[in-house]
């Protein structure tokens, strides 16, 4: 998939003429020859531009070396697969350390600049040849820059998706605490997507557990916006349509304020101060009566 996208961004010119191939070969030889010097120049420019501040000098130099070698390799072979794999691997290592996208792009563009300058220097006497060398170099260099940046962004997106997935799975447990009584503890900010998912799980839970009473505890929710508040009210009504009573507990003063401001009809919604009160109310609705074992023995002996 990555490869396809890159092809769209910078169409690879078919290496048609032998001249281009020859030029690229010459280019690669030049870059190999000056490896140490160009690599150092690059690392120096990175430090100068204050990029990759999250990494130490030695690390930057080590990474710069492998990127440089990869870069030359791609110029030579024209195959970006190895570079793609390397870019992914690199991104995996540096993303957790807080490296930003613009830094990665900046670093790759710096390398491009360093190499181009060395080419200018080498061929400055022969303008025609310089032109042709750049014709060969530019598309390949652009392609490499895109590959590395896209690889980084893709890795980032992959991590984001993975985390969203994890949050989704963790976010809304529907728990049965007694026969026909469910509790739904909600912790953290509710966004529209999460509220949709919450409703879905609750309604399914009602059917699966044949619940009569559901306690939604929102002690762990700091604030909600009016959209989510409305959604909550809708969830309560949908549950009623399925024959279940919903008790909402643990409304913070901010949330209470929001509900009042948007003018929710409180007659439709049962609210109790805290989770304990909510469960007690639910037990009352279900006809349970909780007594301590001491009282039972007293009742029995009496």
């Amino acid at each position, binding site marked *: 998939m990555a490869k396809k996208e890159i092809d769209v961004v910078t169409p690879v010119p078919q290496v048609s003429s032998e001249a281009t191939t020859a030029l690229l070969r010459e280019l690669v030889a030049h870059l190999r020859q000056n490896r140490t010097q160009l690599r150092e120049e690059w690392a120096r420019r990175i430090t100068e531009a204050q990029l990759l501040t999250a990494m130490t000098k030695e690390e930057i130099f080590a990474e710069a070396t492998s990127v440089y070698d990869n870069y030359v390799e791609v110029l030579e072979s024209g195959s970006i697969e190895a570079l793609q794999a390397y870019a992914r691997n690199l991104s995996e290592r540096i993303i957790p350390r807080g490296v930003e996208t613009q830094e990665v792009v900046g670093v790759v563009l710096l390398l491009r600049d360093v190499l181009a300058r060395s080419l200018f220097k080498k061929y400055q006497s022969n303008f025609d040849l310089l032109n042709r060398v750049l014709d060969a170099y530019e598309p390949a260099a652009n392609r490499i820059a895109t590959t590395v940046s896209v690889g980084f962004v893709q890795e980032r997106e992959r991590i984001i998706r993975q985390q969203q997935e994890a949050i989704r799975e963790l976010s809304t447990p529907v728990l049965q605490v007694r026969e026909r009584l469910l509790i739904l503890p909600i912790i953290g900010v509710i966004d529209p997507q999460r509220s949709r998912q919450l409703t879905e799980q609750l309604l399914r839970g009602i059917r699966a557990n044949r619940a009569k009473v559901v306690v939604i505890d929102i002690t762990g929710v700091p604030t909600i916006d009016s959209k989510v508040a409305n959604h909550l009210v809708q969830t309560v009504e*949908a*549950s*009623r349509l399925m*024959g279940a009573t919903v008790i909402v507990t643990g409304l913070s003063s901010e949330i209470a304020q929001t509900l009042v401001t948007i003018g929710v009809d409180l007659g439709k919604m049962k609210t109790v101060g805290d989770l304990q009160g909510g469960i007690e109310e639910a037990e009352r609705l279900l006809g349970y009566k909780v007594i301590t074992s001491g009282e039972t023995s007293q009742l029995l002996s009496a």
Partner: protein
Amino acid sequence: MEVPILKQGGYLIASIQSALSDADLLSLRDELAYRVGRFRSRGVIVDVTALDVMDSFATRTMRSIAHMLKLRGAETVIVGIQPEVAFAMVQLGLTLEDVATALDLEEGLAYLNRGMKRENTGAR
């Protein structure tokens, strides 16, 4: 598509089997109103488990069924609204406000039985 209406003791059970046209809904309403009088039923259960859509007309008809039957002396419970249907209805603002609802047939019967018991003890 006609809706079968079963008599079960003092209750009538209308079990909708497939999507209904507006005309079907109206004939269901009339049929229930007639039979409640004829069998002197005290409770009616309308089972909508098979419906995967409840539009505004269906909802309004359910409401008018409940109100009509109330006037004819029977209590109505709508049972088996599916999760997706329930949420879609609420989003459309169709909340069946003054109509009793229950999870399924069993719950609906339990609801009606509770109502009867209350009535009987209240009368004594």
